[in-house]
C-alpha cells in the first residue's frame, strides 16, 4: 500500500520519526551509555577530590554539584534508560510480538527522557548545576540560590513523564501482545521482571511528579508547603521523594534480575530452577518495595513505633531476594557452565550483590542505622547493589543480546579484560568505603581532615575508580574493534532458549514473519528438544500491518523543553516562554488526536523475500 512512502526518507529523518521499538531501544542504549560515561566522569572527578585529605582540586560548591549530578544522572539518565533500551528491544521479541502496544507513545517516552536529560545538564553552563544531592531535601533545595535546582525539578519532571509513559506501554504490551500459547506463566523471566518493574514505575513516579510539582511551585511561584514559618513542613518532601525513591531502586534491580535469569540458564544449558518461585519472589519484592520507604528516614524523628515497623518490613525483603539468589545457584547446579563474558558478569553478580544486599539488611536495623545513616557505609551499600547488581546486569545483558541488537558479537578477549578490570576496580573502590563510614566519614563531604585515619582507604577507593574507568574505556574500544565479528545465525550462542533467538539476524522490522505458537516456557528450547527445532507458526503468512513514523513526539517534547525555560526564568520575566512551549506541546497533541493514521502494510512477497535471506 504505502510502503514506498516509508522508505523514501533520509536516515536521520527515519531515526527522528521512528516508532519502531528496536530503533527506540537502540536510541535509549546510546543515550544511556552517553550519560553513563558522563556520570562516571563526574564520579571520577569526585574521587580525585577525595584522593587526599583537604585536597583542593575542586571547590566545595562544585563538589556538591558533581555529587548531585552524578547520582541524578546515573539513576535517571543512565541506569534506567539503559534498562529501558534492553526492555524495548527485547520484550516484544521475547513475547513474539511485532511491536509494542503504543509505538507512538514509546517514541514520545524516549524523547521526553532525552530532552529532560539535556535540560538537566544545561544547568552546568548557566550558573551552576543543582547542589542539594540527588534527594534534593528541602529546605536546602527549596532555598538554594541560583537556577540549579530549577533545572533539576523540570529536567526530572520532563524525563519522568517519559518514564511513566514507557512503563504503561510495557505493561499493556506484555498483557495484550503475547503470542498465542504464551500464558503469563510461560513468559521469560526478563519479561516478567520488566513487567513488575513497570508496575513499580506506574505507582512510584506519580509520587515524584507531585514532589517535583510542589518543589517547583515553592521555588517558582512562592508556595509555602516547605516553609516552616508559613505553617509548612519539610518532612513531606522526604516522604514523597522516598515513596518514589525506594521503589525506584527496585525498578533498577528487577530488570537486572531478569537479565541474569536469562543469561544464567543459557550458559548453564539448564532451565531456570524454580520458575514459579522466581516469579512469585519478584512480585513480593515489588509489593514490599512500596511498604518500606521510610527506612531512609530513620533519623528524621518519626518515632520508635514507625521506625520499628519500617525496619521489620525492610528486612522482610531479604527473604524473596534470597529465594532468587538460591534459585540461581541451583540453576547453575548440575549445568554445563560456559564462561562467556556475558556469563562472567552474571556470575560475578551473585557474590557482589549478596554483599550489597546484606549491608542493606544491616542498614535496615533501625537502631544501628543511626550510626550508619548518611555515612560512607550507605554509599558502599548502594554501590554494591547498584554496580554489583544493576551495572553488572547491564553489561551481562549487553554482551548477551549484542548480536541480536547490533548483528555482531563483542570481542570475548577484550570483554574478559574489561570484566576483570571492572570487577576488581569496583570492589577496590567500594569495599573500603564500608569501613570509612564506620570510622566516621559522613557521605557528601567535599573533603576530610588529615589525621583521622581516613587517608589510606580513600586513596585505595580512588585507585579502584580509575580501574573502572580504564575498564569502561576498553569496553567502548571493543565496541568499535569488534565490528567484524558479524553474526548471521538466528541463535548465535547456540543455546538460546527464548523467542528472540528464533528470528533472522539482523532482526526484520516486523520481527516475526508469522506470529509463533508457544508451547512451553523457554519456547525455543522446547522446540529444539521436543520438536523439530523450528517454531510453529500461529497464523498463515500474510500482509503485516505497521505503524507510520511521526515527528510529533519530538515536537511534544521540545514544547515541554521550551516551557521549562519559561518556568525556570519566571522571575526574570520569561513566563511567556512557558506559554509558548505549552502551546507547542498541546498543539502537537491536538494534531495527533485529530489526525488518524492507520499505518501501512508490508506485502507478503516482501516478507518471503526477506525470509530467504538478503
Amino acid at each position: 500500500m504505502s510502503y514506498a512512502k516509508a522508505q523514501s526518507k533520509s536516515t536521520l529523518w527515519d531515526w527522528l520519526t521512528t516508532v519502531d521499538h528496536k530503533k527506540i531501544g537502540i536510541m535509549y542504549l546510546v543515550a544511556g551509555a552517553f550519560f553513563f560515561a558522563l556520570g562516571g566522569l563526574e564520579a571520577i572527578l569526585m574521587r580525585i577530590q577525595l584522593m587526599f585529605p583537604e585536597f583542593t582540586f575542586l571547590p566545595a560548591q562544585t563538589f556538591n554539584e558533581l555529587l548531585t549530578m552524578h547520582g541524578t544522572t546515573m539513576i535517571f539518565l543512565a541506569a534506567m534508560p539503559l534498562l529501558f533500551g534492553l526492555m524495548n528491544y527485547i520484550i516484544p521479541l521475547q513475547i513474539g510480538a511485532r511491536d509494542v502496544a503504543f509505538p507512538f507513545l514509546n517514541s514520545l517516552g524516549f524523547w521526553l527522557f532525552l530532552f529532560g536529560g539535556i535540560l538537566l545538564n544545561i544547568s552546568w553552563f548557566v550558573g551552576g548545576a543543582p547542589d542539594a544531592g540527588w534527594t534534593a531535601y528541602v529546605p536546602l533545595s527549596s532555598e538554594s540560590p541560583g537556577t540549579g535546582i530549577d533545572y533539576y525539578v523540570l529536567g526530572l519532571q520532563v524525563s519522568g513523564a517519559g518514564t511513566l509513559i514507557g512503563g504503561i506501554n510495557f505493561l499493556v504490551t506484555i498483557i495484550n501482545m503475547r503470542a498465542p500459547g504464551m500464558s503469563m506463566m510461560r513468559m521469560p523471566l526478563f519479561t516478567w521482571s520488566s513487567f513488575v518493574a513497570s508496575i513499580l514505575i506506574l505507582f512510584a513516579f506519580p509520587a515524584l511528579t507531585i514532589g517535583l510539582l510542589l518543589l517547583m511551585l515553592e521555588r517558582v511561584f512562592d508556595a509555602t508547603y516547605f516553609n516552616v514559618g508559613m505553617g509548612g513542613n519539610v518532612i513531606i518532601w522526604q516522604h514523597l521523594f522516598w515513596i518514589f525513591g525506594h521503589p525506584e531502586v527496585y525498578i533498577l534491580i528487577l530488570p537486572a534480575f531478569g537479565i541474569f535469569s536469562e543469561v544464567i540458564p543459557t550458559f548453564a544449558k539448564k532451565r531456570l530452577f524454580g520458575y514459579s518461585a522466581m516469579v512469585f519472589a519478584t512480585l513480593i519484592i515489588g509489593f514490599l518495595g512500596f511498604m518500606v520507604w521510610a527506612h531512609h528516614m530513620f533519623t528524621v524523628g518519626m518515632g520508635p513505633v514507625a521506625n520499628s515497623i519500617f525496619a521489620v518490613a525492610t528486612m522482610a525483603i531479604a527473604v524473596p531476594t534470597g529465594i532468587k539468589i538460591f534459585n540461581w545457584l541451583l540453576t547453575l547446579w548440575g549445568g554445563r557452565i560456559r564462561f562467556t563474558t556475558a556469563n562472567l558478569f552474571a556470575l560475578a553478580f551473585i557474590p557482589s550483590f549478596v554483599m550489597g544486599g546484606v549491608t542493606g539488611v544491616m542498614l535496615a536495623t533501625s537502631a544501628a542505622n543511626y550510626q550508619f545513616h548518611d555515612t560512607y557505609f550507605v554509599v558502599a551499600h548502594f554501590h554494591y547493589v547498584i554496580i554489583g547488581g544493576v551495572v553488572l546486569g547491564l553489561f551481562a545483558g549487553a554482551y548477551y543480546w549484542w548480536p541480536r541488537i547490533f548483528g555482531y558479537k563483542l570481542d570475548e578477549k577484550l570483554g574478559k579484560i574489561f570484566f576483570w578490570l571492572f570487577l576488581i576496580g569496583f570492589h577496590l573502590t567500594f569495599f573500603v568505603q564500608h569501613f570509612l563510614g564506620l570510622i566516621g566519614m559522613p557521605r557528601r563531604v567535599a573533603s576530610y581532615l588529615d589525621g583521622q585515619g581516613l587517608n589510606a582507604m580513600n586513596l585505595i577507593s580512588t585507585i579502584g575508580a580509575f580501574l573502572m574507568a580504564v575498564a569502561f574505556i576498553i569496553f567502548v574500544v571493543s565496541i568499535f574493534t569488534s565490528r567484524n565479528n558479524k553474526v548471521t545465525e538466528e541463535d548465535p550462542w547456540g543455546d538460546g532458549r527464548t523467542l528472540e533467538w528464533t528470528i533472522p539476524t539482523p532482526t526484520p522490522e516486523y520481527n516475526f514473519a508469522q506470529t509463533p505458537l508457544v508451547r512451553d516456557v523457554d519456547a525455543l528450547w522446547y522446540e529444539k528438544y521436543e520438536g523439530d527445532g523450528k517454531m510453529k507458526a500461529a497464523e498463515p503468512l500474510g500482509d503485516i500491518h505497521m505503524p507510520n513514523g511521526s515527528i510529533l513526539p519530538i515536537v511534544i517534547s521540545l514544547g515541554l523543553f521550551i516551557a521549562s525555560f519559561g518556568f525556570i526564568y519566571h522571575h526574570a520575566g520569561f513566563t511567556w516562554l512557558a506559554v509558548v512551549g505549552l502551546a507547542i506541546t498541546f498543539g502537537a497533541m491536538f494534531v495527533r488526536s485529530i489526525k488518524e493514521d492507520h499505518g501501512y502494510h508490508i506485502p507478503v512477497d516482501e516478507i518471503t523475500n526477506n525470509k530467504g535471506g538478503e
Partner: protein
Amino acid sequence: MKHLWRLLPFTFILLLAGCGKQNLSALDPQGPVSEIQFSLIMLSLYIMIFVIVVVFVIYVLVLIRFRDRPEHTHIPKQVHGNKALEVIWTTIPIVLLLILAVPNVMQTFTLADTEPTDADMVVRVHAHQFWWEFEYPDYDIVAGQEMYIPTNTKIILELEASDVIHSFWVPALAGKQDNVPGIMNPMWIEAPNEGVYMGKCTELCGPAHWQMDFKVIAVDPDTFETWAANMVEGPQDVADTGNELAVEGRAVFEQSCISCHAVAGEGGNPQGGPDLTNFGERIVAAGYLEFNDDNIEAFIRDPQRYKPGNAMQAFPNMSQDEMDALIEYLHTLKVLE
C-alpha cells in the same frame, strides 16, 4: 575476655584508624548508646557473614564442579524446581531476620527513651549553617561549637535547626538524629569516660557541610559545675589582668564583633555567630581549623575562603595591630582555669 569478641573483625581497621585518639569511630563505642548500637552492628554483621559464607560456599562449589569441559556432551537435566528446598531457603532467612529484628525493636525503643527525669540534664542543640549552638536551659548558658557535659549523666538532647536540615553525630557516643527546622527531635547520650569526642554534621547542608564539625567534651561533674558557673560569670575581666593588648582587643571586639558574637551573655543575636565566652579554650577554631593565631586571623579576614557560604562578615582590611590585639583578647576568653 568480654571485649575480645568485638575486636576480632576490625582489629586491623582500628589500627589503621588510630581511633583511640580521635574518638571518631562507631566501632570503638564510649557510651551506653553507642554500645547498644555497636552490639547491634556486630550481631547483624555476624548474621551477614554467615549468609555470605553459605552463599560463597555453594557458589564456589558450583563453579568448580559444573564448569563446561570439552569432553562434556550431555544435555543437563532440565530440573523444574524443588519444593523442599524452596521451603528451606525461605525459612532459614526468616529465622535469621527474627534474631536480628527482635533485639532491634527493643533497642529502638530504648534509644527513644528521652523523657527527661530529674537526674537527667537537658541540652538544646541548635544547628546553623555551619556551626553548632548548645543551650543549657537549666543553667541559662549558651555555648558555641563545643558541648561540655558531665560524665555518667544521662543527657537529653533536643535537636533543632534554624535554617536547613543538619544532623548531629558523635560516633563514639551515639548514632545520629536530624536537626530539622520546625521540629524538635530528642535523643540521649551518656559518657562514662572523660574525653573529647568528635562530632560531625551528617546531612548535606551547603558548601561547608564537610567542615561542620564540633566536639563533645565530657568532664567530671564537679568540673562541669565549675564550667557552667563560670560560663554565666564570664571570663576574667581583661582589665583586671593588666594585659594591655587584650584590653585594646576587647575594644575592637566590642566595635566589630559583638553584634554577632556574645560573650558572657552580652551581645550576639539570633542570626549571629557562635558564643565566644570560652573561645580561648577551643580545641579547634571554627569547628575544624587547627587552633593557632595564623588560622584565627586568616579566618577572621576571609571566612568565606575557609567555610564557603557561612554567615560571618569578612574583615580583610583590619589593621595588623588591631588584629593582634583582637586575637590576644580572644585568647583570654577562658572559663576553666
